[in-house]
């Protein structure tokens, strides 16, 4: 879909701590996402999944070490991390409500200097015709699902090397979710885009992922290949509704 402009890059997280005020939410996480790999984070509400993604982008108080490819990005500012090729679809959309749909996509390409931005906009409009029809509408007036589509498209407009997805399926219809995950898989296969996915829809996420982690109260309690997790009785009971 999107041209082969990505160069693969892996993510390595060591002893990651994060806190809001005095409350420590992440208590020393160690995990990795292999270059070109797809990893999934599972966990109950409040386990610290969103905080993990925010900590990677230096959006909260953290300590530990985060490495992107060969770069230590632990102390790098959020905007700079994005410029290094990390796209983040935050939980709860994170679109720009007062900007038009088109402007939301254009600002997604803010870090790009190449001439193919317009082509990418067209491509996303093809993928999400609902967005195309609403190109001049303010993002704030879109439905929840439409905003989620916009958030995903907006994040991919920067042609990232690493994509962080915080519950991308939230509020989308089942058919759209399937379609979206198919596209993520294609992106990963064709361009080597590395992905770290937080997802309540564990079945779908484990199908796409090659590795997974389970977080409980800010600690990793279980990890392994997607196959292994799918067959783990504890995971089945807690996240796969078995």
């Amino acid at each position: 879909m999107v041209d082969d402009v990505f160069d693969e890059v892996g993510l390595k997280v060591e002893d990651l701590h994060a806190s809001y005020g005095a409350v420590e939410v992440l208590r020393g996480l160690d995990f990795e996402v292999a270059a070109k790999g797809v990893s999934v984070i599972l966990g109950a509400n409040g386990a610290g999944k969103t905080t993990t993604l925010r900590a990677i982008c230096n959006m909260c108080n953290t300590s530990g070490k985060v490495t992107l490819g060969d770069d230590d990005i632990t102390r790098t500012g959020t905007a700079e991390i994005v410029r290094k090729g990390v796209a983040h679809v935050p939980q709860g959309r994170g679109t720009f409500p007062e900007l038009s749909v088109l402007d939301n996509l254009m600002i997604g390409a803010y870090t790009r200097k190449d001439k193919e931005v317009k082509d990418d906009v067209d491509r996303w409009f093809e993928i999400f015709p609902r967005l195309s029809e609403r190109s001049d509408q303010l993002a704030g007036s879109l439905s929840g699902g439409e905003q989620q589509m916009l958030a995903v498209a907006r994040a991919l407009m920067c042609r990232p090397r690493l994509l962080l997805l915080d519950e991308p399926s939230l509020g989308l219809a089942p058919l759209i979710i399937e379609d979206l995950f198919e596209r993520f898989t294609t992106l990963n296969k064709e361009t080597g885009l590395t992905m770290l996915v937080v997802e309540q829809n564990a079945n779908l996420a484990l199908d796409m992922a090659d590795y997974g982690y389970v977080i409980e109260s800010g600690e990793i309690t279980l990890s392994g290949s997607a196959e292994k997790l799918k067959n783990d009785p504890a995971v089945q009971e807690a996240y796969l509704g078995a």
Partner: protein
Amino acid sequence: MTWNFDVLPDFIFNGLSLGAIYGTVALALVLIFKATTLINFATGELAMLGAFLVYVLHMEQGLWLWLSMLLAMLLSAGLGVLIERSLTRPFDPEDHLPVVLITLGLFLIINAVAGDIWNYQVRILTNPFGKFPDWVPSVGGDRFVEVLGSRLKYQSIGIWVTLAVALFVLGLILNKTRAGLAFRAVSSNVESARLVGVHTGRTLGFGWAIASAFGTLGAVLVAPQLGGVNPNMMATILIYALAGAALGGLDSLGGAVLGGILVGLIQAVLVTWGGVVVFGQLYMSILQLAAAFLIILIVLLFRPSGLFGTRRVERV
């Protein structure tokens, strides 16, 4: 009690031109409020400083008036960037009190410094729209045209045209440039703006720059109506501009301009024209200020986000 309707158009014209100036200053307030949800209380004093820059460049150094204005606007913009970088960026943007206190401190410092340099006398500054240029055919006098049997001053027309041009340029900057897009993004959602790689600090500096330039433009336009420039020239103007911004909605640029114009109209027509009839000349300035506060109060009571505002306005 006699209602003199013959002079009503005069008051409407005056209201519209004063209102346009309030709108210009209100715009400076709203540009910064949109991006930070902060009210920059130093807006008026920065504008006054800009007007004094024009005074120095034009009256003292003899530069062409419009070139002086352009240079002063650029210098004000630079000062705005400097203030954002040095005085506001080090502070937590979520914590409003320190930054509001800083803008209040700036207000006092700039006023005191200006008073020290230029003392508190009014100094005459050339009116950019004093007389029609020679190529305009005379239809009344060299300072006005006759409309509806009243005198529409060249000054008023000049103010409207200037504001229209400035708004057009602002629209281009915000809607057609990369920096403008980034500024609108930061105004809409700071965290998401960071997540698309926008440097929010620099972008806020850009907002301060435009806002300061607009403030300076407003101060230069209002100077002739006040007899010239002086360090206290913007104090009441800022209050009317604040009333206009609150009326229009603190986060709406178009609302700021319309709100400013409305305050000017209310002040000129209801308060001055109506007020002179009912109360006599004596209480005019008190009434005008009271009206401004009344507008702020009523609007914030019934429509906390103003006539055109969208978001709930956070208290600072």
